[in-house]
């Protein structure tokens, strides 16, 4: 048998960063541009959007016509490698609980394919406990994060509109695209029910400004999930942060590096990390002045819990015992159908940007409702690029509606079937709610005592359940969707039959891929793992800058706040280093 050797890198870095998504990418970008030497470790492979291209491909370029595989669960053209199921990297559950865990394994992580919905948290979102008595307040408020939101808006680029909404703050917005046809119909239908509809806020450049550098304005192919190889118009950590930062010469990127644990010295300080290189299966160590975790909320807490020592017997930065706890995701429920007025519609290119042009921010007061937190609504529909699944189930459709004035029998074949496909194309419409869940101590991930992955690293065991708060919220979503669908004369084809038996169609936790809360910040070191600078209470040169640091996550997609807090923490690191505190 071969003996195992640990190879120690001789280079000493200012910062060792684990994970290259929004949090890790922003930390690497900020520190490298300040002249610090950075080692950026990524558990997945190298990925260069300029070379690894799926944008502007046609459905027939994929042998499976864009269908999904376990390597690309969101379809063959989606830019994210891996997802729910990685060979050799299992995770487990406590009986009777659920958590679906998405793991991107590539440079840039899931920012390569995300929805680009970039919503600032509002003033209320940082202080929810003061409003409804549930969960905890953040140790910081909107005023602490606002300057960073402002800078990120300008640096990265985001479109939207200033609406003067208290808890959906204004920002530095580029002009939004005009609504599509079905979005105009949704806007009118929602207004009838008192639901606010405003232009969406997506991190896509619609108008190039000087600071965008070599990035260009969107050319409206609607394929942000493929990552914008051609114009770099949308935000991905790879295109916008990491490759530009690599030009400073201050970053060494190590791909296929699965980090095992954070190393500490006798003084309890972090000295670096150990990792296995997936290419040669050898063990390595890399050391630095600070260690920054941004491996995703669950992976970062897994790493801390696995970093045990005499000094830290239950894991690093965990004297409070909160690491892994308060795990929560956005809630999600959806509904879809057809707009009969769009049958046999005129054809034109309505790709637009990748995603919705309008959305509904939370519009009600929870004090008058039977659930404590809000949700926003995302919409879709129209004439999209055909992909695997196109035309499925025609037998459930063509007998129900007159096709060109003619009553047909369900099913069929031949020229008549071709006419049906043309007739129904582009009439689809749908909507989904994304809501705020209450982070709870008894929703957690922990180290499974009996299971390791193929690298010998103990894996996570999940224990998460929704409460009535989330279930009642899903019920409200469905009632709202039914109303909007009804108002615009839509025929609901799915998602309308949910009831208490299936929690009103509430998605399993994890499914919305907004994992957060497992290494939360707070002023009380007995109830939180990090201070308000994303810095570990127990270990001053250890930082966590992904969604793990969140106390709660509002009904806002968390990326924009991860970016803002990572920039804030990175600048704090720079300033503390200058003061020799780190």
């Amino acid at each position: 048998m071969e003996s195992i050797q640990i190879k120690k890198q001789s280079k000493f870095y200012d910062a060792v960063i684990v994970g290259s998504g929004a949090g890790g990418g922003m930390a690497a970008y900020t520190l490298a541009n300040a002249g610090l030497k950075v080692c950026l470790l990524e558990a997945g492979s190298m990925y260069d959007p300029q070379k690894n291209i799926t944008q502007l491909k046609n459905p027939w370029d994929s042998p499976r016509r864009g269908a999904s595989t376990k390597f690309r669960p969101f379809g063959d053209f989606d830019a994210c490698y891996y997802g729910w199921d990685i060979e050799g990297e299992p995770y487990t559950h406590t009986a009777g609980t659920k958590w679906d865990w998405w793991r991107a394994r590539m440079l840039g992580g899931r920012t390569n394919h995300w929805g680009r919905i970039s919503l600032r948290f509002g003033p209320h979102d940082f202080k929810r406990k003061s409003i409804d008595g549930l969960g905890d307040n953040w140790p910081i408020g909107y005023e602490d994060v606002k300057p960073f939101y402002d800078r990120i808006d300008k640096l990265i680029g985001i479109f939207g509109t200033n609406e003067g909404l208290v808890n959906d703050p204004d920002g530095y917005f580029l002009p939004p695209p005009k609504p599509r046809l079905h979005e105009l119909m949704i806007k009118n239908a929602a207004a009838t029910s008192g639901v606010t509809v405003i232009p969406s806020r997506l991190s896509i450049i619609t108008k190039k400004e000087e600071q965008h550098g070599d990035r260009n304005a969107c050319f409206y192919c609607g394929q942000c999930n493929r990552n914008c190889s051609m114009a770099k118009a949308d935000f991905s950590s790879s295109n916008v942060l990491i490759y530009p930062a690599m030009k400073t010469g201050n970053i060494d990127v190590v791909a296929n590096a699965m980090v095992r644990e954070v190393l500490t010295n006798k003084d309890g300080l972090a000295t670096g990390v150990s990792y296995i290189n997936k290419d040669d299966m050898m063990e390595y160590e890399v050391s630095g002045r600070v260690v920054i975790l941004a491996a995703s909320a669950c992976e970062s807490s897994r790493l801390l819990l696995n970093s045990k020592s005499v000094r830290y017997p239950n894991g690093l930065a965990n004297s409070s015992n909160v690491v892994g706890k308060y795990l929560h995701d956005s809630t999600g429920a959806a509904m879809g159908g057809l707009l009969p007025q769009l049958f046999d519609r005129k054809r034109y290119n309505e790709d637009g940007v990748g995603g919705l042009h309008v959305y509904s921010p939370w519009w009600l007061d929870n004090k008058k409702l039977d659930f404590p937190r809000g949700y926003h609504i995302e919409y879709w529909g129209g004439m999209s690029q055909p992909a695997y699944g196109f035309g499925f189930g025609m037998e459930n459709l063509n007998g129900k509606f007159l096709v060109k004035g003619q009553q047909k029998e369900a099913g069929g074949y031949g020229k008549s079937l071709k006419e049906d496909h043309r007739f129904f194309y582009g009439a689809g419409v749908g909507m989904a709610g994304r809501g705020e869940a209450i982070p709870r101590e008894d929703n957690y991930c922990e180290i499974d005592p009996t299971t390791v992955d193929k690298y010998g690293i103990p894996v996570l065991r999940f224990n998460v359940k929704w409460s009535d708060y989330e279930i009642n919220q899903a019920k409200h979503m469905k009632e709202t969707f039914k109303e909007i669908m009804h108002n615009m004369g839509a025929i609901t084809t799915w998602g309308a039959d949910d009831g208490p038996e299936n929690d009103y169609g509430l998605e399993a936790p994890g499914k919305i891929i907004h994992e957060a809360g497992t290494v939360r910040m707070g002023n009380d070191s007995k109830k939180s793992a990090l201070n308000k600078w994303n810095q570990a209470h127990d270990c001053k040169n250890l930082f966590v800058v992904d969604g793990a640091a969140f106390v709660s996550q509002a009904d806002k997609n968390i990326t924009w706040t991860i970016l803002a807090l990572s920039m804030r923490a990175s600048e704090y690191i720079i300033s503390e280093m200058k003061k020799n505190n780190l």
Partner: protein
Amino acid sequence: MDRRKSLKILATGAIATGAVVIGCTNTEQNNKVTEPKFNLDRAKEEFEREKKLLSEPDFFTVHEMKTITVLADIIIPADEISGSASEAKVPEFIAFIVKDMPSHQVPMKGGLRWLDIYCLKKYDKSFFDCTPTEQLSVVDKIAFPKRAKPEMSQGVKFFSLMRDLTSTGFYTSQEGVKDIGYKGNTPNQWNGVPTEVLAQYGLTYSEKELFECIRFDS
């Protein structure tokens, strides 16, 4: 028809022009050794799997492929707007997708055999060997779920799957995308819904939208 006679026909290969026994490999089909080429990004493990999939022996026999081709062209024939399923290489797509999605394998292979047995009993020959009139007569019995007789329910299920895969295969081909009239997947400037379409639906953009949204001179 006499059951003993049916079995005899099966055994002598009157149905199966390719391999008679399912699972028997046909070496002639298996000798394709070509390095697959993709013009879209493939991650390393993904590429390895694709290569393996493409080098696997054909899942369908020659006879099954011929039957699939006849069915696909009945489902999507050429018309004044576009060509047929086989012209758009839909049978080739189906041959690949059953390897990629093994859940289709038993319903497809079993459904094809169900169809052949039905034709054998009724016409004393396989579906493929039936006359076009006989083929359409059988298809009519399984293509309309509401009208179909209960004893045809398995055939209905199979035909619905064939309809799904054929429709998807066709409308994701170059020919099919043109037929359906999808105009996107190309750099352009989104200037909003065309004026005549807004008029058709009695909709307008608000002053606010016209003021704040991005616009391009057309």
